[in-house]
């Protein structure tokens, strides 16, 4: 569903991503771990065609993202680290706008409200202006937007960063549901626990290179932490 082949991105002399090969199948959650500047967000931005690859290919559902960006985006939903919404609009108005952009037509308000509730937002918060929302509430609107698109692939860029444990737990539960529906999920995160808990596979990136990949059920949490720290920072785990 999501595939990168020899994907390279260079900014001048800086090699942000070096010959990345990656494949995320339907019903799989692939967690990309790595320190800051390892190339995780660059990978997400390449799948979204926000930036152009220097070389290599990136495709969604077999569609070349560079050649057919609009067609590829019909199959992708995206939740960034911080879901940015229009502060002067309400949660449901934001959902309505982004859903219409995604689908090309409006969905009934009742259906949208149902999506917000499924994403964990309290019903009385939906008509309030987003300017007064916490980060967790914004993330829930972002999740509702992604759910409304009902796509086959989901890109998550550190989606639980800054969320309280309960919200992060609810989010993990939603990911499980999507995985069960056969959605291919690529998630960047610093949260080893989340990666181990929800991920099918884990990849550790280091300086633009996918240094290692594991099936999550083949490594324990402590082992994963040790490898992650070793690869990312060159240290042994305590």
């Amino acid at each position, binding site marked *: 569903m999501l595939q990168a082949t020899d994907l390279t991105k260079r900014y001048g002399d800086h090699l942000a991503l070096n010959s990345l090969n990656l494949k995320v199948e339907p019903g799989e959650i692939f967690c990309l771990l790595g320190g800051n500047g390892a190339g995780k*967000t660059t990978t997400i*931005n390449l799948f*979204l065609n*926000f*930036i152009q690859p220097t070389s290599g290919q990136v495709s969604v559902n077999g569609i070349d993202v560079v050649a057919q960006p*609009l*067609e590829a*985006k*019909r*199959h*992708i*939903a*995206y939740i*960034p680290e*911080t*879901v*940015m*919404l*229009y502060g*002067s*609009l309400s949660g449901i*108005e934001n959902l309505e*706008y*982004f859903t*219409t*952009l*995604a*689908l*090309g*037509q*409006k*969905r009934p308000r009742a*259906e949208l409200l*149902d*999506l917000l509730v*499924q994403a964990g937002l309290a019903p009385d918060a939906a008509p309030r202006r987003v300017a007064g929302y916490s980060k967790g509430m914004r993330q829930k609107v*972002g999740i509702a*937007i992604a*759910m*409304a*698109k*009902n*796509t*086959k692939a989901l*890109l998550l860029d550190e989606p639980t960063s800054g969320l309280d444990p309960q919200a992060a737990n609810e989010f993990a539960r939603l990911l499980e*549901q*999507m995985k069960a*529906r056969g959605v291919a999920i690529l998630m960047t995160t610093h949260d080893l626990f989340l990666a181990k808990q929800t991920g099918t596979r884990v990849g550790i990136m280091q300086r633009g290179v996918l240094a290692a990949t594991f099936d999550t059920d083949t490594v324990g949490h402590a082992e994963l932490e040790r490898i992650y720290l070793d690869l990312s920072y060159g240290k042994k785990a305590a």
Partner: protein
Amino acid sequence: MSASTVTAADMPRQSLFREAISLERRLFRAERLVLLITVILLAAVAYALFNGAAWRDRQGSLLASAQLEEATRLDEQRDKLTKMNAGSFTPTSSFQNPRNPLWVGLRHAATYAALPATPLAITAIGQSDLNPPYVLVSADSRETFALNEEIENPGNLLAGRFDLAFFVVFLLPLVIVTLSYNLLSAEREQGTLAMAASNPVRLALLLWAKLSYRAAVVLVPLVVFVLAGLLLLGAPIFEADGPVRIGGWLLLVTAYVGFWFAVTAAVTVLGRGSAHNALMLVSIWIVLVLVLPTVGSVAVNLSFPVPSRAEMINSLREVKTDSARTADAGAAKYALEHETDRNGGAVSDKDFEAARKRVLSVQLAAEQIASTMAVYDRQIARQRSTIAWLRFLSPAVLMQDALNTIAGTGDERYADFSVQVDAFHQQWQQYFNARVLANEPLTLRDYDAFPRFVYRPGSVSTVIGPLASALIGLLLPMLLLFAYAIRRIERYPITDRA
């Protein structure tokens, strides 16, 4: 997950543009921006039209006073002549003699040639603060009216008047820049652009929706307020060529607004931040609206300098003095050659000699005056023809020129008026000078047959021609800028990190 089986891959793309417009409407409403812009436009248009109407009324009042003065003066002469015919009035001097064609043609019957205001005169004061709407034509030489420019407060000339054209040409672009400097950059800086761009929607569509909504927010109230203002202030926009002029005004303003939105689009797609965009747009405004017109004006004045007006007037006085001396000898010669004419003299022989001398003096001076003034006229014509090309460098100059033409306060209309006045002046001189040279006294019937000036307005093409060239001058760069924006927007950086 929703029970719906609809997916993004299946859905039609029918209402994206409408939704993007709707978003802009909601964002503007939340910030009360539409109300703010509407109030600004209403205040500016009301003040500008009020100024224009006050100026039109002032000029109309001056013309009415002048025409009343002329009618009173002429009635006095008729009364004198009637009394003279009845033997109850005897003039004490040649100057007071209502039968004397010299002084009647030179002073007592001198007539005002007036340039009527057009239906849209209140929209642009234009050159009307330099060129008076009427001139006093007499049998004297041409320079007595041709150099009769309006004496205006230099402060007003320096600052210009706040009329509708000033608002549209100079200030409206700033309103557009203020509304549009952060079209996409603000969304990128807030992060909402990434949310939008992760969907199957072209950035060009979002940009186009933002531009369209903002253009509507500016244009709709502007047009409504201007039309309402014109009607309220009694501008006869449905009379004569009024509909053509108002249609032209609407097209011009739409094109000018379109041009400035195209500039903001072109700057936007460069992908810089909001502050950078604002600085760049203000710089462009300064260059196009302030610097280029000034540089163009200086270049034209240096290339085709017009003689000093004071020097020229002194020179013309010298010419007239010399001519008067020459005329003394000429008149004596004429008297010898036309000895028999004395017998039918309408006025005394002494007055007759003086009158002939004056006419000869004017005629002798006319040729030299014409050659002196030709230098002035030629340089002015060169300046105008150069400016006609240079104006395409600055949309502000192009727009101001076209708005003046629409309002009937542009150079071309005054030049046409001047040509018609020159022709009328010759007709006037011929009428009176022929009677002076033939020593024919004026009768009451002659008074009724004095030539009258009636301005013949140019055909509608005199408005449509300049309007069309201005529209081309605005629309062509607008289309090029939009084409550039559309071509470049797909490379627009979606995130700051990109």
